[in-house]
């Protein structure tokens, strides 16, 4: 359907954004617009659209000693091309290259992907596997929360209507960190995830010192699979082999930590089967990467 009209705002600074948020109701914040415009074409009504694309401070990729910062309007393509991301968070590049089509990646943003907060979001599981946080700002201040605390439910975040996501904050991984992202879609490209798994492992002395196992598209939000994580923490790498008992147990636990639904892309049971398989692949691939 046709995109309806709205009041269009194009602030240049964060302060202007705060001002707009404080003085207007029914506001949609727009980064790339690849989700928002489709939603509006399908009937979502917004009186005000605030474009964040002229706010240069929201379009930066930067770093300090401990963290990498990604602005919310940074496109997937910018991530793919960024030397900082390539250096510190290479798995995010692999992850975003599996999102949408090249055209979508040229306009779609990681901030938008996180804030649209679709359960099938592909960037969130990897970001969570890296223990990412987000910075949320408003005229009254700045707060910093875990990404897992941002995403409350399918299409619902904890950002209030006077706030804006201002940074995605990713801890620079230590040398003992390895990760992998597995996406399962129904065609080779430009498909929505039936299920996805991001694994982050911290390895010490051939043992898993700490771990994140995050599943996408199988619950109202991407979720950390706690019982699976408990199983893998302290596991010896030698016990994590293809078809090993422990690996199977972890895969089973991951699947049972999820709460998928039946939809046009697959049944809940099938999703659990997929999760088991791709969890194993993600773990083995990340260990394999670590060993090389």
């Amino acid at each position, binding site marked *: *359907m*046709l*995109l*309806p*009209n*709205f*009041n*269009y705002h*194009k602030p240049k600074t964060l302060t202007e954004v705060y001002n707009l948020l404080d003085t207007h109701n029914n506001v949609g914040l*727009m980064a*790339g*617009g*690849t989700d928002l*415009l*489709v939603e509006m*074409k399908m009937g979502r009504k917004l009186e005000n*659209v605030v*474009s964040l*694309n002229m706010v240069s401070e929201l379009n930066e990729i930067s770093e300090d000693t401990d963290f990498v910062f990604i602005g919310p309007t940074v496109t997937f*393509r910018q991530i793919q091309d960024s030397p900082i991301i390539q250096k510190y968070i290479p798995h995010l590049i692999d992850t975003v290259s599996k999102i*949408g*089509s*090249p*055209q*979508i990646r*040229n*306009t779609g943003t990681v901030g938008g992907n996180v804030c649209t907060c679709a359960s099938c979001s592909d960037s969130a599981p990897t970001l969570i596997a890296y223990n990412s946080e987000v910075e949320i700002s408003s005229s009254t201040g700045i707060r910093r929360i875990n990404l897992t605390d941002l995403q409350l439910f399918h299409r619902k975040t904890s950002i209030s209507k006077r706030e804006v996501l201002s940074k995605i904050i990713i801890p620079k991984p230590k040398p003992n960190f390895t990760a992998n992202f597995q996406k*399962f879609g*129904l*065609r*080779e*490209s*430009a*498909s*929505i995830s039936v299920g996805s798994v991001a694994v982050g492992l911290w390895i010490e002395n051939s043992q898993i010192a700490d771990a994140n196992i995050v599943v996408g598209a199988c619950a109202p939000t991407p979720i950390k699979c706690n019982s699976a994580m408990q199983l893998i923490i302290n596991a010896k790498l030698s016990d994590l082999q293809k078809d090993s008992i422990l690996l199977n147990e972890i895969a089973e636990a991951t699947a049972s930590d999820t709460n998928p639904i039946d939809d*046009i892309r*697959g*049944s809940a049971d*099938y999703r659990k*089967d*997929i999760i088991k*398989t*791709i969890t194993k692949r993600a773990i083995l691939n990340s260990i394999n990467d670590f060993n090389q």
Partner: protein
Amino acid sequence: MKQIVNINVNGLDYEVAIRTGATLLDLLRDELKLTGTKRGCDHGDCGACTVLMNGKAVNSCLVLALEADGQKIETIEGVAKGEELHAIQQAFVEKGAIQCGFCTPGMIMRVKSLLNDNPEPTLDDLKTGLSGNLCRCTGYVKIFEAVETAVDYLKGKPRKEIEYQPQKSAIDLSVVGKRLPKLDAPDKATGRAIYTDDISFPNMLFGKTLLSPHAHAKILSINTEKAKALPGVKHIITGADVPDITYGTSPARYDENILAKDKVRYVGDVIAAVAAVDEETCYKALKLIEIEYEILPAVFDPFEAMAEGAPRLFEDKYPNNINTHVDHHFGDIDKGFAEADHIREERFVGNRTYQSPLEPHCAIAEWDRHGRVTLHTSTQVVHYVHHQLSRILDIPLGDIRVIMTNVGGGFGAKAATNILEVLSIFLAKKTGQAVKMRFSREEMYLYGRGRHKQFIDLKIGVKKDGEITAVKQKVVLEGGAYSSFGVVTTYYAGSMLATLYKFPNYKYDGYRVNTNLPPSGAFRGHGVPHPRFAFESLLDMIAKDLNLDPVEIRLKNAMEPNYHTCNDLDINSCELTSCIESVREKSGWKDKKGKLPYGRGIGIGCGGFVSGAGYPIYRSQFPHSNAIIKVQEDGSKVVLFIGDADIGQGSDTVLAQAAAEALGISFDRISVVSADSDLTPIGFGAYSSRVTLMGGNASKMAGEQVRDKLLVKASQMMGIEKEKISVKNNRFFITTNPETFISWEQVATEYFSESGPLIGAGHYSPPKGLGGTYKGAAVGTSPAYSFSASVCEVEVDFETGKVKVLNFWDAHDCGTAINPLNVEGQVDGAAVMGMSETLFENEVFDKSGRMLNPDLHNYLIATSADTPEINSTIVDSFEPAGPYGAKEVGEGASLPILGAIANAIEDAVGVRIKELPITPEKILKAIKEKNHNY
């Protein structure tokens, strides 16, 4: 709420006042009139609207016009330098990478940006890099070839001539049999080709339809007062304002009202139409129309619909909602099964698929002051639209002009008169202004007319050696709410099984059942792909039971030339055996079948189709195809006027080749005007794979008529009997002494000077009396039949069930390929579409009959990334009924694919999936069940 945008497009600065809700696509198309950028889905799924923004490819439908303020935009119109095509455009034209052309501008823009980033892409880079640009025609293969060629051109490498071994039947021909680029390709490559939605008239209004939100309901009242009061609304019509006439596709089942009269029968049934100054106002007005419904119980499953006591869609007809019943028995089925050594019966289930052409339907109607109406429309069948409009409007054909613009693909979705065509005319009449109506992507799905989902019980009996003794098939077709093509579909589902393999005894029962879903219609292969999938699957199962090679069992039963089938169809040319042998050889079948590692497999399927229906949809005695050739007074050029429709398949080019060959001129001297009811004599249009044979014969005949007139003149001029003169390559020459010649122009000029207009006319009707005398014998008749075989190799991820098709080896008997480049394009496109339907596509509805995936985000079709390698062969063949021996390729090539994939999957992982689409979930479930049983 307009704002100013300053934008640089193709190097020019524009300052435009635009509404806030406008996208960059709206700005380019509607404000700047740069209509080369296409609107395909409006949701960022198809890529047809791709432009470059600051050098990066973006979907312009997902960029606000206001966000493009201050940006640098490049569109297809800026790619060529004057008349000089860009290397990418040149390569697309030469390599046959353009069919309907609707994806082409976006595709070329994407390629341009891809090559900027990566000047020497690998094939894999292309497959993933182009996956945001859907193409429904080409199967992407020729697009990859074109990009590879473009890379060479950009590096300054010269053009490589392709070495091509012509078919035996084309060796002595000079225009037919040549790999010529399509006539319309340069216009499509530059964005100049005009599609209906690219046209706007002064003072033009827009129209939109109000669709039923309910699957089955009585309309108690409609109140349009509030809507009419909305500023900008010009007119609103409801069922009460249109004639009390039903229409449809097949005269035996005209059962659709122009607008719902008393009740609605599916979510999407059309209730009212609004004309207003713009689409925005139309949408607002639609929301103000108040309707009171009484919800009726609905039925969505054909078996439930047939049961006693089920809700009836039509009270006055179709008892038990059975819209069509076919009961055919040929030979003696009992005797046939009694003779069999082995009998197997299985249930197969098809899927509900949609043609998904890249271009949404669009129509523009305008009346003149003399009571004549002109309709520009995106149709496959100008003539049928013309006829139907005359019936509905009750005015003579001569007062209606139907003009087909370029059409962005059809595949059956545009093969009948559609609601936009009818309503735009009514609204234009009432308002006295031109009215444009177009479907959104969602409306296309809701309007439906895609493939019937079929439930097939198939039983085959064979001798020990695999010889088929009897076939019994019962098919239940999910018809949706109205008949559309369904009567014909039901007959085709039965009749076409008998054209591929020889069997003497056959029983077919077909039931087409109405349900409260969008109507099912005709989609490439019309009714046949699901039965063919069932047959090819069951044949493999039987071969396995008997320990026979699947290739051998096909060769054993393969159709042969000059055969009269058990259901009274006459096969002329038939090279099925050489097709099968060719794919066996090229695929390395003997080294692979049953020998590949677990997870990898190979399978074969065969197919074939009519080369045009033997009888028209409604009875008339008009020739099916008609052509006029008009020669310029100086003989420099000729124009072919042909009623048949080029919807991207390339028929204008093919028909021009047939005509040029007959005329004795080179291809650069002919152009084509097609599918305009005022300018061209009737042609039944592009359906049932009829155009090459029928339009080709008419064009050839028209060419021969001109040639014969000129031979008389040349004989006078050269002073030698005309029997001793030949004509070829723009020369009339003495056959025994080719160096003694006069030019074609000289003879034509002389003729015109003496006798006036030099014109030729040709027509084609299928032979009289095709087919048997039983009820329904007409469906399946054709002057000629195509044959094909395809071997498919797949890789199955046995832990997820996901299938990757690696290769197709296809061989097609299309008689003489008039244009082998086009034939390959049809085969590639059919293979990828067939693969897409087999693995991905399915329309899904919720419990209230609402479609859950009416968009290209959730209704998945194959992308470039899914495309396998395709190796296609055109076998030597000559069809006596066809022009220069030609017959069809467009639909037949899709038929072997479904079974070939199912068979390859079985070979790979040992499970037989009998229900389409073959999803990873079904495969994994079957694997688990199989492992569990061990």
